[in-house]
């Protein structure tokens, strides 16, 4: 079911000299209820503006946003407040009000007309959860950057909205806050009633959370798809270069007690990784980490070697992309154009690919 639908969205700014700067042009996508939708793109691609428009904090120049088939752009100011309360918007840079930690976190509940006695307990709980117990009465602006971020996260998560908008939130977080945020997001992801829209420039983060990804380039959506589609079959050069052309495979990990390595079953392949994880995982391998040879490799230190067939070749100047199909999985591999010619690789060539257990990133899913 489509919860949110963005149609033909455009945003332009007028500069002082009346010239127009386009920020977003012809954005179309929809988000399903319970989905985690990640918008990925470099800085300045328009991610924040897009999120602000969705969160009803800015008006688009043209276009529609439908929430449950209701056009949010055309509704009255009063109605907008009502719909805005279905969202929470976590900013890249935390902003807190000039008041106590407690009042900051309680604010979203207070403006919704909830009485002090009714929200006091949940606010106390979340303060404990973010580790700021005892600092309730401190002014939030006097906190350290990391503490302030925790307050900002807590005040947005406590309002329990329908849709969470997270704008580059992990960009400035220290490792402790990153873990805290991760816990929050994972908790929401489990709730199939809640929808998440994340903007990020970090491909790994996109892979980690996304059910679907939209790639935003210079105000336009370059591609929308599942992480696998985006990373294995980027539609254009920008997407390919920007997302870092990752290989992402879904599998089930089993820990081998004897070696301390994981055996990951990906369809009909078994991949060995040096991670300690078990259960459902995502396997990420950077294309440049994968080696390619024509004959079966001998005396190799690589744990993973698979036989495959070159299915596609994309030439990108000095380097080229090869898509190699090994049994039912496809791998994206980068090599220089020179080595491709030396190896005499063409579409249909039979090859062996190999990669080290330590070059694999395992993400639990």
């Amino acid at each position: 079911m489509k919860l949110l639908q963005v149609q033909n969205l455009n945003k332009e700014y007028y500069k002082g000299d009346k010239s127009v700067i386009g920020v977003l042009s012809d954005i179309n996508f929809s988000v399903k209820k319970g989905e985690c939708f990640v918008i990925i793109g470099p800085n300045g691609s328009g991610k924040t503006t897009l999120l602000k428009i969705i969160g009803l904090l800015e008006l688009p120049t043209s276009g529609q946003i439908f929430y449950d088939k209701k056009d949010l752009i055309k509704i009255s100011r009063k109605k907008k407040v009502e719909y805005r309360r279905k969202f929470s918007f976590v900013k890249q840079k935390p902003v807190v009000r000039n008041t106590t930690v407690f009042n900051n976190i309680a604010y979203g509940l207070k403006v919704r007309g909830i009485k002090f006695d009714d929200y006091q307990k949940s606010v106390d709980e979340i303060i404990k959860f973010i580790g700021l117990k005892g600092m309730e009465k401190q002014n939030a602006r006097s906190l350290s950057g990391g503490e302030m971020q925790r307050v900002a996260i807590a005040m947005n998560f406590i309002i329990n909205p329908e849709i969470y908008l997270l704008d580059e939130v992990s960009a400035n977080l220290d490792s402790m806050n990153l873990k805290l945020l991760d816990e929050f997001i994972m908790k929401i992801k489990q709730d199939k009633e809640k929808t998440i829209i994340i903007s990020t420039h970090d491909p790994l983060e996109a892979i980690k959370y996304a059910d679907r990804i939209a790639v935003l380039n210079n105000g336009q959506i370059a591609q929308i798809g599942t992480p696998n589609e985006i990373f294995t079959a980027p539609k254009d050069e920008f997407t390919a270069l920007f997302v870092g052309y990752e290989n992402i495979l879904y599998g089930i990990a089993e820990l081998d007690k004897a070696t301390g390595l994981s055996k990951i079953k990906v369809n009909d392949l078994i991949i060995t990784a040096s991670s300690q994880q078990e259960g459902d995982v995502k396997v990420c391998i950077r294309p440049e980490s994968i080696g390619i040879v024509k004959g079966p490799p001998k005396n190799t230190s690589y744990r993973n070697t698979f036989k495959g067939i070159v299915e596609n070749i994309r030439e990108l100047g000095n380097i080229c992309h090869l898509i190699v199909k090994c049994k039912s999985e496809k791998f994206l591999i980068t090599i220089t154009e020179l080595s491709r010619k030396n190896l005499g690789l063409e579409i249909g060539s039979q090859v062996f690919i190999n990669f080290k257990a330590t070059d694999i990133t395992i993400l639990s899913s």
Partner: protein
Amino acid sequence: MSSRKPLKQLISEHKKTIILALIIIAGGSIGTFFAIDYLNAQNPEKITLATTTSTYDSGLLDFLLPKFTEQTGIQIKVLSVGTGTAIQYGKDGNADVILVHSRSREDDFINASLGVAGVPYGIHRACIMFNDFIIVGHSSNPANLQTGDNITKVMIKLRDAMDTGNMTFYSRGDDSGTHSKEKTLWAEIGIIVETRWVGQPDRYTETGQGMAATLLMTWEDVDAAHEGYTIVDRGTWFSFNETYTSLKILAESIIGEDLLLNPYGVIPVNPVLHPHVKYLSVSRFIGFLTSPYGQALINAYRKNNAVLFHANFGICDVNSSCPTTDDEIAIWTPFQAEFAGLTV
């Protein structure tokens, strides 16, 4: 945990009640003051007198009015402005009664043909007192004014000294009673000041300010070759003669000549033209001023041990300035009865 409920929270939960209470308190007190002002405006026992700065600043009114209020309960709000402004206030109906010193303009004020549709602005003027104007300057006296010079001679001497560049005459230039008297004196020797010394402020300076500022400028204009003169009423002069000690009286009225005399007229604003004026209270006030008691009070007033004003209601000779008509005497005599038998 509920014991932690902060005061701020209590306030925010009763915000509406608190704001309402504050609005009621503030609105109530402001409203009360507005109401007091409004009721005062309607109160027949509160009248507004527009008068000239020279009368007010001399302190005479602060001496006279409490005695009137004590007797009648009527309070008087005094607006102390220039004669021109006081007359305008009367014309606009913003004052109930005016006390001014410019005979020609008083005449205009009560002249029916200069009123509104044949109705004069003021009625039944009473001349209650006079003082006199004096010419002051520095003791070196470049215009060589002598005791006993009559006013025509004084004005000619001043004109000549101005024309030779030995002195500057400082004029109020503000349409006040003093200013209009000064213009009358120049007119006596055929000079129209508006055209005579145009663009020559080193000879004739219009200060456009009050008497104090004009005296100050006159006082400061002193060097061997060039000095300042000005005209001032004796009442105001006694407020400043101890401040500007180097200024001296160089010419004053001589017996049998009334040009320098300065008669003060009190005129009720015409209730036909302005029905809101409190004519009855005004009449009692004029009855007080013209009564033997009021007249004796005027004569008794001293500042720096000097007599400033001479009562002259009903006295008609050249040495006490003579503006009151028999009609006016007849009108105001009945109102004097209230103050009969009172002594200073």
